[in-house]
């Protein structure tokens, strides 16, 4: 087996043996259970005249609530990816664990790519698994299914992968705690910068809009989040937001358009840059 796959397997195996996967599965099942109960309550809400809400209103409420719940999932994924990726290489360098392995016929690039791959498998599996469970629960509770579930999973997973890639790059040089904290702060700043960009859109202020655009280029997590939001917006909400003009776009929990192709192309380039930088950084590090 190529060393890339050996290190990928080790990363998955470590998460499993250290019970990280078990903890995530249990927590996710709890969240899915609670949210299923909550979504189900929407269908039983009665108006002042004693009648239940019409199906269209249930769909509207469910769609917006699902966006908030998904934000929680994307947060868990981003936090987990940053916390796990931050010490992925640095802790093994500091403890000496990598010393005897790097004395084998192993390229440092294989270590970096293998660890990225292993964690990417975990992030993608968690995004797909939790989305499947949550969407199934919402469908069961309210009959609502978002318009683009596959795209939703892809955008949420890509957001986690972006944090993982940044954390791994930092891990090649900085201590685990420092790298993890920087990745988390960067994620929050990118989200806030996205909100600032929204405000700029609402106020039609190009300087503020540029803040959002630049943050999307530096760390595309917020841009990917907007893609996930768009994948969850029903047509009726999109029509309302579009009718509201620029004001309808000034909201971090709404998206009127899918991410532009140029942005998605940049995301691919960004991932390639992050991995290349990580490999270069680790290759030139003295251990």
């Amino acid at each position, binding site marked *: 087996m190529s060393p890339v796959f050996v290190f990928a397997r080790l990363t998955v*195996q470590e998460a499993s*043996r250290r019970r990280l996967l078990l903890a995530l599965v249990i927590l996710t099942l709890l969240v899915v259970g609670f949210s299923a109960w909550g979504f189900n309550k929407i269908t039983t809400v009665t108006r002042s005249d004693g009648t239940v809400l019409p199906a269209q209103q249930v769909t509207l409420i469910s769609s917006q609530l699902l966006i908030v719940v998904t934000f929680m999932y994307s947060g868990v994924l981003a936090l987990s990816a940053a916390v796990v990726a931050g010490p992925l290489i640095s802790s093994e360098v500091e*403890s*000496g*664990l990598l*010393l*005897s392995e790097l*004395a*084998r*016929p192993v390229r440092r690039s294989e270590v970096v790519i293998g660890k990225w791959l292993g964690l990417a498998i975990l992030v993608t599996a968690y995004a797909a698994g939790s989305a499947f469970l949550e969407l199934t629960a919402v469908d069961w509770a309210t009959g609502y299914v978002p318009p683009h579930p596959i795209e939703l999973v892809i955008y949420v997973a890509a957001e986690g992968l972006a944090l993982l890639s940044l954390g791994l790059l930092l891990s090649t040089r900085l201590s685990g705690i420092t790298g993890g904290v920087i990745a988390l702060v960067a994620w929050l700043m990118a989200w806030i910068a996205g909100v600032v960009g929204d405000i700029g859109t609402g106020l039609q202020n190009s300087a503020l809009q540029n803040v959002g655009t630049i943050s999307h280029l530096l760390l595309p997590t917020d841009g990917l989040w907007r893609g996930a939001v768009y994948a969850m917006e029903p047509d009726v909400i999109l029509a309302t937001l579009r009718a509201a003009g620029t004001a309808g776009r000034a909201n971090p929990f709404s998206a009127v358009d899918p991410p532009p192709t140029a942005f998605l192309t940049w995301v691919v380039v960004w991932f390639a840059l992050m991995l290349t930088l990580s490999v270069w950084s680790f290759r030139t590090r003295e251990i």
Partner: protein
Amino acid sequence: MGAAATAPAIHTVDLTKRFGSTIALAGLSMTVPRGEIFGFLGPNGAGKTTSVKLLLGLLRPSSGEAWLLGERIGDLETRRRIGYLPELFRYQGWLDAREVLALHCELAPLPRSTWKEEIKSALNTVGLSDRADDRVSTFSKGMQQRLGLAAALVGKPELVFLDEPTSALDPVGRHDVREIIRGLSARGTAVFLNSHLLSEVEQVCDRVAVVDHGRVIASGTMDELLSGTAVRVRVSGLDQAAKAKLAAFGPIDDEGEQLTFTKLDIERVPELVSTIVAIGGRVYEVAPRHQTLEDRFLQLLHEEEA
């Protein structure tokens, strides 16, 4: 048979490493033949571990050149034939001993059909056969060091680097490691033993180099290095000023009432005793002996400081 097959296990020419303005290794030039047990001695911070890391490609030299088994350092293929026990040894606590060794077999890489026998043999050699299926996190530090030694032995390497291999071991463990090292040499494996445990080095090494402040200050076979005589004197009544008057008798290892003259011709012993008495000392015991590696080591460091 190519030139690489008969090349020395290690050959370095002016190998130098600087960290900023600090010189960690200053022009190391040495040759370690195949099958030899080579001791690399020095006080803490002398540049021993830096040398090993340079040879293994974990650090890049600032200047100079080096070859392992006839190939330039950093060559991936050569690493198939090398074993390494780091000074800072650590293995995945969530794997069991057998899995750790399987990982090293995989990275070596060895044919899968040989893993079982390799792992069994390595575990047996280091005395961990009965703990093969236990998680490494349950191991004592000494057992982890034994496991590290086992990992260095998989694949029957032609050259093994052991960096302070007995730092966590009890006397029985140290004895076992000496036997393992002798066994490696007997089958033709060169061993580069990094250590500051001088008695250990003295017992197993064919040749040694003493390094201090990044420079080799002496090297040779044991016979070449330990040709002198040392004299241990038990004496009272001498203060530091009086002891300073004995400097003419060579380097002194001063342990209070016990003074060891680490290099002193036996013919000068009567003169030494009369001088001690003349300056007010009371002599209780005089014990000339062949110079030990510790005597020689202290003498070299003393000369280096002077």
